[in-house]
């Protein structure tokens, strides 16, 4: 009872490959990617606590890794990812209360999230470097 069906090349709806990235779509997927990334950084947090609990030797070993160049770059990325997910998450919570759904507001809050995350990252690192310089 096998029916001979030939596959016809049907037109496909516009999909992700040909869509021009927009702030709305980029931030939407960014919230998801940063969430996954933060889950990975959460593993680092647990390793850090476990190292601290096991003693000064393990702790200083981890400090050396974090203090290295790749460690610092990852830590800088982690800072931005943290603030982007925090600010983006608050934006989502505002939407959940059925507010700020006008297109203009969506773009305004989107740019606010991006700029605020970048600003908070820079401020955090400047403060951190300032404190490191004093201790």
């Amino acid at each position: 009872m096998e029916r001979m069906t030939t596959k016809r090349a049907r037109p496909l709806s516009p999909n992700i490959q040909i869509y021009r990235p927009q702030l709305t779509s980029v931030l939407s997927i960014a919230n998801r990617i940063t969430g996954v990334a933060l889950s990975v950084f959460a593993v680092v947090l647990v390793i850090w606590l476990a190292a601290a609990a096991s003693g000064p030797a393990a702790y200083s070993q981890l400090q050396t890794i974090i203090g290295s160049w790749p460690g610092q770059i990852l830590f800088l990325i982690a800072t931005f990812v943290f603030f982007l997910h925090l600010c983006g998450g608050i934006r989502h919570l505002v939407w959940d209360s059925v507010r700020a759904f006008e297109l203009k507001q969506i773009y305004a809050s989107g740019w606010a999230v991006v700029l605020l995350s970048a600003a908070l990252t820079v401020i955090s690192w400047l403060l951190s470097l300032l404190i490191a310089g004093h201790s």
Partner: protein
Amino acid sequence: MTRYRIQTPLGRAVGLGSAKSGFGHWWTERITAIALVLPAIWFAASLIAHTGTDYETFIHWLAKPINTVMMVLLLVTLFWHAALGLQVVIEDYVHSVAKIWALIVMRFACFALAAVGIIATLRIALGA
């Protein structure tokens, strides 16, 4: 004039809409998100304040009751929220049997990591 109810009394009592348990997941994700805001900001601020401090200072800081409580709260809400979020990501991109395994492994990992983090914090707090 009373509005005619199309829902059965049982359906009304059970209180699940067409989303079934989906609403509970969605709601818990929001609640854990709100719960995370304060511990997350506390954590970021603490990291900044402790740049370059040595082991002894860090242990002493974490052993303070307020910091121990905040760290445990952070770990609970963080891994709860992460488990709910990662569940949606897995359900969207992983299919068939692999999805079931990915969900189980993810849940196990979240519980295990939360347990390790909390116990490490308590060991430091209790000076074990």
